[in-house]
């Protein structure tokens, strides 16, 4: 088992490097020239050629674009064409990819193409909001999904099972962004019911007392959390149902009934407790998935989270921001999968490496 866990952690590294290569390949092919933008922005018409060159190299250095792109590059002929046989040139460790990747691991995400400030400043507060709404939504989804799943597994084929199954199934096909638009339209606009704010996360500033601010923020988050919750709901309820059906068919449940235990005690204490663990490990898998799904909800409700930041970055051509968020999302789901896999192995050591590694 220890061998499996170590191998699983070891596999994390090539995947991480693979992801970083994909993201870097994309980021180095983006259109537009960030330097020209900044050169035009602080244009001084009486500038000498030397000072212009100096300014240019300063901006280049600021954005870390003065280094060669990768560990090795291709040399060109003198006339600008490529030679028949590749003329490889070793760039050493001072290249854009190396400094970007290792800077990333240290928490330095580079400078924004929009305002040349470090991206990190904007990311951390966005990360907090994204985590807050997603974790709250998943907890809520668990709270609703567990009773539904347990009771429908208790009597498979009963009316309750069929009705909840059908409703969950219909809910599953409703696009989240459609529901969000409808909710804003009917519950957050002056034309219909004005019960909730249409967007943002707060309307009171820091001067107000804590409880007032708390109520204000939770007021803003009702609709977005609802939209994220219902997406996760179907998936969790189905998993609960499946794993409960599995457990309720085991012999020890029959034994418990034969002992004359109360029905509810058998259901919750014997059945549910045993299916609880896989459900908890599932949390690590669901969190990255919902964060990916909450991108569009954040944009619609103007929540200053990661998804909205990436979307804004896309329109501002702020590539370091967009690709940092992409990379962070990927790392998050990698870690989530890793935690889920390892905790699953700890709970059930029978699972062999070859079965679980893929």
């Amino acid at each position, binding site marked *: 088992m220890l061998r499996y866990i170590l191998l699983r952690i070891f*596999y994390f590294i*090539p*995947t991480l490097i*693979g*992801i970083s290569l*994909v*993201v870097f390949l*994309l*980021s180095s*092919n*983006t*259109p537009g020239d960030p330097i020209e933008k900044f050169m035009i922005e602080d244009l001084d018409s009486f500038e000498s050629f030397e000072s212009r060159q100096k300014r240019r190299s300063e901006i280049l250095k600021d954005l870390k674009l003065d280094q060669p792109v990768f560990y090795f590059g*291709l040399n060109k002929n003198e006339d600008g*064409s*490529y030679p028949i*046989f*590749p003329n490889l040139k070793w760039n050493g460790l001072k290249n854009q990819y190396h400094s970007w990747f290792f800077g990333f691991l240290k928490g330095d995400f580079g400078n924004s193409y929009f305002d040349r400030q470090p991206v990190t400043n904007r990311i951390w507060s966005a990360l907090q909001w994204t985590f807050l709404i997603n974790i709250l939504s998943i907890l809520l989804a668990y709270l609703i999904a567990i009773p539904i799943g347990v009771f429908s597994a208790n009597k498979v084929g009963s009316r309750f099972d069929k009705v909840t199954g059908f409703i969950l*199934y*219909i809910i*599953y*096909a*409703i*696009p989240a*962004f*459609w529901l969000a*638009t*409808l909710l*804003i*339209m*009917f519950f957050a*606009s*002056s*034309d*219909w019911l004005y019960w909730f704010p249409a967007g943002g996360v707060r309307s009171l500033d820091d001067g107000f007392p804590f409880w007032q601010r708390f109520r204000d923020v939770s007021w803003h988050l009702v609709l977005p959390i609802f939209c994220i919750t219902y997406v996760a709901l179907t998936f969790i309820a189905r998993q609960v149902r499946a794993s409960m059906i599995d457990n309720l068919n085991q012999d020890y449940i029959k034994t418990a009934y034969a002992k004359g235990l109360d029905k509810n005690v058998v259901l919750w204490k014997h059945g549910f407790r045993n299916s609880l663990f896989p459900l908890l490990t599932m949390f690590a898998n669901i969190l*990255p*998935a919902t*964060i*990916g*799904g909450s*991108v*569009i909800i954040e*944009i*619609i409700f103007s929540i200053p989270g990661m*998804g909205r930041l*990436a*979307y804004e970055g*896309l329109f501002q051509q702020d*590539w370091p921001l*967009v*690709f940092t*968020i*992409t990379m962070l*999302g*990927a*790392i998050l*789901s*990698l870690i989530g*999968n890793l935690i889920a896999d390892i905790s699953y192995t700890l709970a059930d050591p029978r699972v062999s490496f070859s079965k679980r*590694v*893929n």
Partner: protein
Amino acid sequence: MEKIPEIENTNSYFNILKRSSSGRISLAIIIMFFMVAIFADFISNEKPIYCVHEGETYYPIFNSYANGLGIADLQHPDYTKEWRDIKFEKVWWPVLPYSGYTADLKNIFKSPFEKKTVIKGFGNHPLGSSALGKDVLAGIVHGTRVALLVGICSMIIAALFGIFFGGLAGYFGDDKVKISWLHICLLMPFSLLGSYWAYISSYHFDSAFLQLFFGKSILFFSIFFSMAFAERLCIILKIKKNIALPLDLLIMRLIEVINSIPGLLLLFALLAIIDTPSVLTLIIIIGLVRWTSIARFMRAEMLKLREIAFVQSAKVLGLSSLRTFLSHALPNALTPVLITIAFGIASAILIEASLSFLSLGVSDETMTWGKMLSYARQKPSAWWLAIFPGLAIFFCVYAFNNLGEILGQKRN
């Protein structure tokens, strides 16, 4: 010779769908959407199907098709006027005389129940109108075409990738493909050299097609050459020791890399590097992102199949492993993959709708369901702009999801 009685295949996928009522409903919905998509131009168009003007006969819709193919010039009886202002002697209008983009400035943001000022005999904006008086129903009709086109074509791309990679990973596993170290040693530099030549050759061609074709053939040829050369060398040098190529491991790592990046963020990153987004680029991007689920399903199917008797017996008969794979294992895994493709179409349609809702992905002229929904955000009182396109997305997604669900249930 005795005649073998024909046995009706009661378990064919079509029959399974016909037997359950929800299967029939989703099949009907899908067929309806297909019909609308195919005949969209004849259902809703600002041009008439057939008209006579000053003694001359025109077929404007067919004419625009011919013009699109480059056969005919665009005909217009009176260039100074809009189609609907021209007086014809004889005319057949489509059911809905508006295209998705036709502006009708007299009816801006009209609800379905409101009274509209329209020329008599013309469509009455049955589902309301949006900004600039664009007809909602016409938008939905033309959006159907984009949605189905993206959903199905992107899944064709995804299926090609998924079936190929998933099949390789599942059938050959980590230990079935054995090649000598010499092959690997020669393959690595030659494929790198081939890609370098493909890269520099692209500077000599102007057309993208020639660049792609010539580049790929150089790459393919250099790989083929290195493999053939290695084969010869192995015989000459009598190298017999083989290394197992961990195909399964490599492909599953690739899938993990793609799956780890959250879907919409990966699409954002891919859209960032494209200058002019169009339906075609959207199809390719979605296809390249969504093949992993098909590959995983295919792999699981192959793992089961390769232990089954007929595949084993093909091997015993002495067929090469590649031949067994291509002509025995692969065809039998294809039908179950239809299940994932049905789910995949639903999710591709959803992705297209959400991207165009965020005004990413398709160009401004193309009318899509998601784009119509985004109009609703500009004017919250216009409920018809949110309800009807959303319902179209919902029914389409529901139908394809249900198709996959029913097929999956019957299989187990």
